[in-house]
């Protein structure tokens, strides 16, 4: 079942590359068909998936290189399924929004499909080495996509991306090898409790390696500088894919491997991780305010919003972990929407500079529908209720507050700042009198708008009915909560003694010492 998804994508990529005499339009159609089948197949997978089960489902296992401990082992659970769906959806949308006029189409479309393959494989892999291989697989196509189809400074951006991601890969590989070799195991299969047997010093070292590796991918400050450059230089579909799905590999890795394999070390580091999240959120937000390039603004906002995922992961309560998954999906949808819309504006007006664009809401000569969608997107990003950004952030904050009150409150400042920079953006670009730059814009076709409309509809739908994504992950995520519950326990005592005055003495003391989660919420 799961391999079929990967096979569909790979064979689509191979067909476009191999079939002789394909025109640009044909390649695009073929890629679209492939992505469509992959999306459908994801739906089929979801229908086979039983959300109430906690263990891995639809597992597949084939021995590969046994002497290395590498097996081809796939499986899906509530943590990976929503991200898998996001990947299939955004892959299709990225192909849809690439136009026919693109040069070297028979390289371009296979590369996008290969990225999809790599990401899907990484989400599905249940063997550390296999995860690493898929994780690597996604890197090369993206490098080429930036380096060949990018903007003016594409060489610089692509190289930077390559170097950063290579470091990330090495660090992750070192972490994985360390876990397996130090624990004396012979197989690289993902076993959550593998690292438990290691002395704590080694655990910290290995977790640190994973944090740096995935931290580059997320990206966390100060490992982030590849992201704005990559986004600015990459073409619109690639940007949407990069922000929408690829960054999620980092947070997925942190939750799955960091928290999953090192729960004890994680719970010790958690307060620092939460502080790291705060720094990322505030740094990203403040930097976004200072930007004048719309793409850079959205890129820095990505840095800020991915910080919420780290906050939720570090709190590691059942609610916050669930929230981290929803935040990943919601950020994927919202940032992809924003990048697509910025792309349309750039394509039509020739600039992304907020100081040069003005009055694009103008109904006759501007881009009114694109503007409306953009306002919807930025409001979703700023966490206005009714859209998925609100509920995901709300759950992040609610889930994390009981563990890290101060860090959570500081992260909430970030939502205020999001409103500031995105409002500045929409105010400058869409309000006011139409600027000269934006006179005589070419018409926007419905096919240009369609992807953004689909995503916007999803944003609103999931915002009104978050149950539709929550239900997939709920039971899986509850098993990820550190069983020792070391963090929850210590800090809950802290929070209780900090906030509750002596009049609560009538409570059962054991309840205060061992608060059941239901007690907090």
């Amino acid at each position, binding site marked *: 079942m799961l391999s079929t998804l990967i096979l569909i994508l790979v064979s689509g990529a191979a067909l476009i590359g191999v079939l002789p005499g394909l025109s640009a339009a044909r390649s695009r159609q073929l890629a679209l068909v492939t992505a469509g089948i992959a999306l459908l197949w994801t739906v089929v997978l979801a229908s086979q998936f039983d959300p109430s089960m906690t263990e891995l489902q639809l597992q597949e296992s084939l021995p590969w290189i046994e002497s290395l401990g590498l097996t081809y082992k796939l499986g899906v659970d509530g943590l990976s399924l929503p991200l898998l769906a996001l990947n299939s959806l955004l892959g299709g949308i990225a192909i849809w929004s690439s136009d026919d006029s693109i040069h070297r189409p028979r390289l371009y479309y296979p590369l996008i499909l290969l990225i999809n393959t790599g990401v899907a494989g990484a989400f599905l892999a249940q063997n550390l080495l296999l995860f690493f291989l898929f994780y690597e697989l996604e890197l090369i196509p993206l490098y080429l996509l930036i380096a060949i189809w990018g903007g003016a400074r594409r060489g610089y951006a692509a190289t*930077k991306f390559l*170097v950063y991601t290579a470091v990330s890969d090495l660090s992750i590989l070192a972490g994985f090898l360390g876990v397996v070799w130090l624990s004396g195991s012979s197989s690289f299969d993902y076993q959550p409790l593998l690292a438990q047997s290691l002395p704590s010093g080694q655990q910290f070292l290995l977790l640190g390696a994973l944090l740096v590796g995935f931290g580059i991918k997320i990206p966390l*400050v100060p490992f*982030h*500088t590849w992201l704005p450059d990559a986004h600015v230089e990459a073409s619109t579909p690639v940007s949407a894919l990069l922000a929408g799905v690829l960054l999620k590999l980092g947070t997925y890795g942190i939750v799955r491997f960091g928290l999953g394999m090192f729960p004890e070390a994680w719970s010790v580091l958690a307060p620092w991780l939460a502080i790291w999240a705060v720094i990322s959120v505030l*740094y990203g937000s*403040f*930097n976004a*305010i*200072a930007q004048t390039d719309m793409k850079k603004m959205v890129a820095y906002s990505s840095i800020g919003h991915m910080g919420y995922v780290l906050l939720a992961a570090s709190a590691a*309560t*059942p*609610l916050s972990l*669930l929230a981290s998954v929803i935040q990943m999906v919601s950020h994927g949808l919202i940032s992809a929407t924003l990048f697509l819309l910025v792309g349309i504006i750039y394509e039509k007006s020739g600039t992304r500079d907020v100081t040069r664009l003005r*009055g694009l809401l*103008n*109904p006759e000569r501007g881009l*009114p*529908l694109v503007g409306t969608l953009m*306002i919807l997107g930025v*409001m979703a990003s*700023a966490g*206005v*209720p*009714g859209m998925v950004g*609100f*509920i995901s952030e*709300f*759950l992040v904050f*609610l*889930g994390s*507050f*009981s563990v890290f*009150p101060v860090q*959570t*409150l500081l992260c*909430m400042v970030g*939502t*205020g700042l999001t*409103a*500031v920079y995105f*409002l500045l953006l929409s*105010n400058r670009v869409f*309000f*006011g*009198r*139409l600027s000269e730059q934006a006179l005589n814009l070419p018409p926007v076709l419905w096919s240009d708008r369609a992807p953004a409309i689909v995503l916007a509809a999803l944003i609103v739908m999931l915002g009104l009915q978050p*149950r539709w994504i*929550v239900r997939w992950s*709920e039971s899986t995520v*509850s098993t990820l909560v550190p069983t020792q519950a070391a963090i929850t326990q210590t800090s809950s005592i802290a929070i209780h003694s*900090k*906030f509750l*005055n002596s*009049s*609560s003495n009538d409570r059962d003391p054991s309840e205060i010492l061992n608060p059941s989660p*239901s*007690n*907090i*919420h």
Partner: protein
Amino acid sequence: MTQFLLEAIWWVPCYGLIGAISTLPWALGLFRRTGPRPAAYLNLLMTTLAFLHGGFIFAATSDQEPQQQLFHWLKAADLDLSFALDISSVGLGAMELVTGLSLLAQLFALGYMEKDWALARFFALMGFFEGAMSGIALSNSLFLSYAFLEMLTLSTYLLVGFWYAQPLVVTAARDAFLTKRVGDVLLLMGVVALGSLAGSFNFPDLYQWAGTNPLAPTTAALLGLALIAGPIGKCAQFPLHLWLDEAMEGPNPASILRNSMVVACGAYILIKLQPILSLSLVAQTALIVIGTVTAIGASLVAIAQIDIKRALSHSTSAYLGLVFIAVGTHWTDFALLLLLTHAVAKALLFMSIGSVISTTHNQNLTEMGGLGPRMPATSTAFVIGAAGLIGLLPLGSFWALQRGIDHFWFSHPWLVGVVLLVNGLTALNLTRVFRLVFWGEPQQKTRRAPEAPWPLALPMVSLTVATLLIPVLMQHLSLLPDWIYLNWRGMVLLVISSCVGCGIGATIYLHKAWSRPLQRYWRMLQDLLGYDFYVERLYQLTVVLGVNLLSRIGAWLDRYLVDGVVNLFGFASIFTGESLKYSTSGRTQSYVLTILVGISLLCVLMTWSVW
């Protein structure tokens, strides 16, 4: 039938939202042939439905105990987010007021916005506005209220920014959103903290939790301050009050709702939160202080305004300040009553000046005059609205203010003074505006003004009648005090303060040349009040400067430090590579030399210990 409608009470907020969505084809320009009017009619129909539906329930449940409806929305992990709806006479009454005023305002808009090409968009936003407000009235859950409040922030932004091509509108919309957002984010902090600590978002559970007095004083104070921050922004209280003044750049029909109901929605949530706020003395004191500062400050500022809408919008802040004081002193009945009477009277005043603006195409008070005989219905509406707002004739606010004075008489005597002062200053301001607009000699822009056309006049006259009938309604709901328990001294003081205010307003020198006094001190005073005590300058120097500075520092750090280090590594590797390449010259001598030097260095190192 009743049961069915009662169970479907959650439709009421949805009507507005459905109306908003149904305008999309016209707003997007898909249906061009019909013009945008059908969208407006659809919205009016939806609002009428909401009004009738709510009215039916209101009548049917008026003699019943308050009920609560619970909808489970999201059950995730250990969290159960449910929406509680409050079916009580207060909540339903507030909802009726919202839908009723919205209906009138939309009717008014049909005439006022007649020539606007974006009529469909306007009505969509009004529907959204109304849906969010009736949701707040109905909600019995802090989470739901917060969500609606935030939607209100968004729709305010879009409504203020409706005429987005004008530069002032752009800044006004931005400031409205950001100012409210500051309050909302603080409120969100309070909501999250409260939800974490109390374990529920529904008000009955929260009250029960608050009853056990579970918080340490500092926490309670911080929580209380966070919770009142949202209403401070929403009700345009100091220091988050300037957005309302700027928001007057927006279309007038939206201003009608904004000055009457939107601000009241913030206060309504504050009233709902009152049992939690009473956990902390600091929060209550803050409420009283903020309320007092705003009430007096805004009343003074209103007097110096020459924009007709701004002159009235500042008095909205002032009255909401009184509501804050009432909540801070636990007199929520006074707060609710004042919200009701203020909303109706203020809506009428805004309709009246809306009709003035639409006839004269002018908002500058100093360019008006003599409209009274030319626009009888409009001037009657203004007079009735003004009378309904101050404590002179036994109309709505008279009884509300009287009740406030009655409450404060023994508990906080100095607050009686505040109420009287605000009432007097408002009377002064309204008399001044009346004289400038409707009295005196007509000027160029008012000379040929006709009475407002019927689409404006109909809702205006209806609301005039409604304002006159408010005391009857209060009598019906037994909100009027008994004759025996009347505080005569308070009433006399109230009437005196109004008379003094009106008297000063009627006699001060209002010549057109007055707009700039010659004496230096008067001029400074006028500037001080005219520029809102320079609070905007204060924003610029504190929050705006801080955020700007931090973002610049961040950008600098990012560019030169973080990215600089990365580029330095890149540069260093390229530089070393570039310089080392000269070593591969192809000349044997240099290679031999390199090998010799290398080997001798190696020998020296290896034999280091021997030496």
